[in-house]
Every structure is written in structure tokens, then in C-alpha cells.
């Protein structure tokens, strides 16, 4: 059993992940208090406020992160909030912010420059986050496509963090730590974080301390948020496959351990 070719395991995983897409099943999705808090805190923002939606993730984790940004944008646009997007990721961040935001904005008939703006990317997240405290324009003289901020009507009323009501950070890396330690701690802008599952356990500490008002952890977190906003989409559809593969992996762990204990038991018997 120890010698089983790993490719058989790969094949089992592939089957477990494909089946639910061919035979979809509707699964009830329970809501954790952390996800509920995300929804509630966004709901509590006055309609029409200016908010940041931050695309701090690489294209490698779109499966987990894009459902979060998409749903957040829908949630904000539904509340007629003005959305400002930016990214601290030099690989794909600004492009994804552009594509995703445009797509969702079209659903809601929002106008670029008036209802939403994509600031794009600048190097050095600590400097970017610190610098925007005094002046967003000094760090981002233009938006992502090179239009000066002064030509964008929305940015007339947005000068620095004082004009930002909320930060919706979606991250697959440690940039969320700096949004907490720099922007939230020094400028008091309320924020929540949507993160890949890998980062979620750490961020429970920031939720407990109230530095994050809520937390979305991985695809399940995204599914919960989609459910709460009332627009089930990719993440909700993914839950079936997620369930099957988890059960498969648990079965594999159990199988591996049973084999291990049998071998150990035999060895012990032989010794006696």
C-alpha cells in the first residue's frame, strides 16, 4: 500500500473534483459569525460612501479571491457606494482590478470616473499605504490608465483616508497585515479582509482584536458572502467539489494511518 503510485491518487482527486460539476447538488451553506460580520459591516456603511476595494492577490488565487471581490463590488454598487480600486501586486493585480470592476460596473450601469476609479499599482506597499494618509494624489498622480486624478470627478471629493469610509481588502499574502498595522491603526479606517484559506487562521487574531470587523476565509468564506448578499455564484457552485475532495483527503489520511499502525503493530510483534 505504501508503494501505491501517486498518480492513482491524482486521478482520484481529479474525479472527485469533476463529478460535482457534472452532477450538481445543492448544498446548504452555513454562515460563520465572521462572514456575517463582513456583511453587516458593509450594510452599516451609509449609502453613497467612498470605499476602497483592494485587489491584493495574484492571478494564481483567483479561484478563491475573485468571488470575494466580485461580490463585494456588487454589494457596494447596490448600495450606490463609490468604489476606488487599487492593488499592491505587481503581477496582474491592476489588470484584474480593471477587468473585474468593469464587468461588475456594467451590471449596475456605473460610470467610470464618477462611480468608480481604478488607481492601479505602485511599488512599495508600506510607502503606498503610508503616503495615501496625507494625499492619495501624491502616490497615484493618475489612475491605472494614465488619466490625471483631477480629471476624474469622483476623486474631487477623495483626498486621503479621511474621505474613505471603508476598506474591503482581498489578499492572498501578508499585505493585509500592513493595511492593519498602518492604515487601520494610524488612520482608523474600518476594514474587513477576505483572504485565501491559507491566511485565514492568522487573521482570527485581527478579528478578535477588532482590527478587522469581519473575515472571509477562502472559497467557503466567499460562498458564505455570496449567500448573504443574495447572489450565489462561482464560490457557491464550487462547494460540492470542495466537499468531495475534502472527504477524499480525510479518507486518504485515515487509510495512510491505518497502514502505518498495522505495520508498526506487526514490527512490534516480530520483535517480541
Amino acid at each position, binding site marked *: 500500500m505504501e508503494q501505491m503510485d501517486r498518480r492513482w491518487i491524482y486521478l482520484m482527486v481529479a474525479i472527485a473534483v469533476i463529478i460535482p460539476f457534472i452532477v450538481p447538488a445543492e448544498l446548504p451553506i*452555513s454562515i460563520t459569525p465572521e462572514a456575517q460580520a463582513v456583511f453587516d459591516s458593509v450594510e452599516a456603511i451609509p449609502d453613497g460612501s467612498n470605499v476602497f476595494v483592494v485587489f491584493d492577490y495574484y492571478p494564481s488565487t*483567483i479561484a478563491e479571491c475573485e468571488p470575494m471581490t466580485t461580490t463585494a463590488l456588487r454589494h457596494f454598487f447596490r448600495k450606490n457606494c463609490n468604489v476606488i480600486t487599487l492593488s499592491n501586486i505587481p503581477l496582474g493585480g491592476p489588470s484584474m482590478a480593471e477587468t473585474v470592476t468593469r464587468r461588475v460596473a456594467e451590471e449596475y450601469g456605473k460610470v467610470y470616473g464618477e462611480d468608480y476609479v481604478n488607481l492601479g499599482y505602485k511599488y512599495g506597499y508600506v510607502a503606498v499605504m503610508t*503616503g495615501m494618509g496625507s494625499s492619495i494624489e501624491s502616490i497615484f498622480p493618475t489612475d491605472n490608465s494614465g488619466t490625471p486624478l483631477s480629471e476624474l470627478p469622483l476623486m474631487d471629493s477623495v483626498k486621503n483616508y479621511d474621505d474613505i469610509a471603508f476598506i474591503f481588502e482581498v489578499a492572498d499574502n501578508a499585505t493585509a497585515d500592513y493595511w492593519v*498595522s498602518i492604515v487601520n491603526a494610524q488612520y482608523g479606517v474600518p476594514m474587513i479582509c477576505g483572504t485565501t484559506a491559507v491566511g485565514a*487562521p*492568522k487573521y482570527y487574531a485581527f478579528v*478578535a482584536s477588532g482590527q478587522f470587523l469581519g473575515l472571509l476565509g477562502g472559497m467557503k468564506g466567499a460562498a458564505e458572502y455570496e449567500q448573504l448578499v443574495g447572489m450565489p455564484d462561482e464560490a457557491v457552485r464550487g462547494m460540492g467539489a470542495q466537499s468531495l475532495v*475534502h472527504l477524499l483527503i480525510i479518507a486518504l489520511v485515515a487509510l495512510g494511518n491505518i497502514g502505518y499502525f498495522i505495520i508498526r503493530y506487526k514490527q512490534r510483534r516480530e520483535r517480541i
Partner: protein
Amino acid sequence: MRTTVPVAIAFLSGLLLVTAFFFRADTFVGGLSQELTVWLTIVGGFTLLLGVVSIVRVNWTAIQRRKEGWGYKILTILAVFAMAIPSVLSPDWSPLFGRAEGSVYDWLFQNLQMPMMATMFATLAFYIASAAYRAFRARSAEATILLITATLVMLWRVPMGEYILDQLPGDIPAFLNTYVMGGFNMAVQRGIIIGAALGAASMSLRIILGIERTYMGKG
């Protein structure tokens, strides 16, 4: 000269930023530090290009010396230029130039780079399953705790698993969220966060004071 100047620059710029933290933004120190942060975003931007130059150089040398697999390396260099050249040309000349939607740059990103990056990481799901089978053994008390917690969390975080947990007595999902994630895990993460913050602060202090220079490549 070769060491003193960099060390002095790190010292002055670092000290200014530390000082500015304790002053309001509209002071002289505040204004100066704001200017320096803007400068950092400019200077630092160039470091991204260093990596590009390195890649081209390394691959080019490999091609010249006909090292193993040099044919593939030609593809790498071609891909660099295919992405880079149209993006630095002015979009006023052609909609294919620049970075906007419809440009070569954006097209290559959306249709090649993005699916490739996503796939690279997706393969980890296979490896993790195989590793779970092979490597995760209850070898010791510690490993057993890790294994049990991991299994419970895996069950809890998916609908089917949660259904199974709900069949057991007691409210296990709520217990997991409140006590395991919000209790044990949170406390440990907090300890680690505090420790890591002290480590980062200590490193920064040594860089500002010029005691730590490994970043300069000084062995």
C-alpha cells in the same frame, strides 16, 4: 565611501520616517516624510526591472553556451519581448500597444499568463492529497493533535462535512469556530504575530543604524 554613504542614507531616511510618525502630517517633518514615501515608490519601481534584466541575461547566456534545454530558453526570451515591447509603445499609435483592454499586453495576460499562474498553484491540490496519504502520520502526540484538528477543520469548512459533524452530539461547528479557531488558534497566532512584529522591528532598527547590511550583498 562604498559603505558609509549607503549606511548614512539608510540612517537619515529611516530616522526621518520614525520621527514623522510622532508628528502631525501638516508639519515640516510630516511633509518631508510624505515626499520620501513618494520617492520610494519611484525608486523601488525600478527594482522590479532588475529581475527582468536578470532573467534575460541568465537565459541569454544559457542559449549562447548551448546549455541543456537552451531551445526552451529562446521561448522565455521571446515571451519577455512579446509582452514588454508592445506595452511600452504609445497606445496613440495603435490600440494594440499600451496596457488597456484590447492591447497585446492585456490579451497575453488574460489568455496565457492568468490561466497559467492559476494552474501552477492548482496542481498543489494533487500533491497535498498525495502527501496527506503518505506523510501525515500520527507519529507522536504532537502530530496526532495536529492531525485531529486538521481533520475536524477540513470537515467543518465544507457543507457535506458540516452535515456529518451535525449528526454528532453537541454543536461541534460552533465549538470549532469559537474555541479552536477563536481560542487556541487565535492565541497562538497572536503570540506569533507579536513575536514576528518584534523581530521585524528589531531588523528595521538594525538596518537604520547600519548594523545590519546583508541586504547590500555584503557577506
